[in-house]
């Protein structure tokens, strides 16, 4: 339960991130992160850069068709934007021959085997403990002040503020 709690605190606060490189497919612009992404992909891509390390602009998925109705298979000479359809499909338009992209993502934190194995920063371990306590309270059927504890944790986990960290780019 500690492992699960740490994963969700990390996801909520975007604490530990990693990068992966993806080779651009010239025949399409859509990549399934569950198949093409890294094994520790945790549902959130924060930013994408091209092979010259230039930032690629985030695009709302609904706007993809406004730029080009053939965005699914568009080819070009420079990658212009990226988007996420749901949490599993990464879209990079247009496709460019012999190119790669680098994406930054929130990682799935490893299994906790000892206290020294916790990977989130010390100032958030309290959140991990509180979330673990809530899960354990489900198992032991202790619901006194449960709602207040959930709301308090939600506020403290900065779920509301995380967007400001990226200027809303990845949200």
């Amino acid at each position, binding site marked *: 339960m500690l492992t699960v709690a740490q994963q*969700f605190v990390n996801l909520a606060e975007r604490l530990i991130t990693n990068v992966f490189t993806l080779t651009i497919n010239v025949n399409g612009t859509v990549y399934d992160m569950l198949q093409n992404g890294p094994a520790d992909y945790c549902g959130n891509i924060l930013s994408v850069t091209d092979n010259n390390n230039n930032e690629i602009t985030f695009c709302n998925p609904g706007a993809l068709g406004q730029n080009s109705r053939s965005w699914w298979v568009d080819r070009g000479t420079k990658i212009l934007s990226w988007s996420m359809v749901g949490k*599993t499909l990464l879209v990079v338009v247009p496709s460019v021959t012999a190119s790669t992209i680098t994406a930054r993502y929130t990682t799935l934190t490893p299994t906790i085997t000892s206290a020294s194995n916790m990977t989130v920063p010390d100032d958030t371990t309290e959140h991990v403990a509180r979330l673990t306590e809530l899960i354990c309270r489900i*198992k032991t059927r202790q619901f006194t002040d449960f709602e207040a504890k959930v709301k308090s944790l939600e506020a403290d986990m900065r779920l509301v503020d*995380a967007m400001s960290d990226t200027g809303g780019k990845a949200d």
Partner: protein
Amino acid sequence: MDATVVSYVTELSNGEADTTNVLPGIYEDVLGQINIPPILVTTQALSPNGDYSVSLPEGSISGLFYFISNTGFHYYQQLGELSVREADWLLPTWRNISSPQNGQTVYSFVRESRNQRDIFPVPASSANIYALFTYVPSVANNLPSYAPTDTLPAWLQMPVALLCLGEEYARESNHQNMAMSKACTMLGQLMLKAVLK
């Protein structure tokens, strides 16, 4: 059905939840509900029906984007969307139109039911149609061909297990417990917020 979700449900319910007969239905229901803001999305080629409409496969929840590659087009283009009323107003005979009219270059689809779309104008029989849609991973061994896997990503397992427990304890049974149901749902929604944020 995801084995880790089943083990979470069994563990947190202390074995009370019926994971054989009841949980599969609840699991599908929960995944259908949480996938309304799209989370699990995949893509698949669709075969036109006899009336040139296309249907999303079983297990799909909602179509997000449709693409067509038709005779005369060298690339796939995204279909625009029309309501039935808009299509009727635009051209009352729209169901019989088989080629773009008056310089129209964009194909559209008309939403007539949750999973069925009529393509307008009617495409050639050789047209290729693809859809991006949200889906529920299989609950049994009849895994649809489009589903990458019947397991859920690790970042969805606990929220789904908690939301399943919320429904399990809300239904009429010898272990019905509304306080437990409310707590599970509340905690499941909190964890789901972390995923959706």
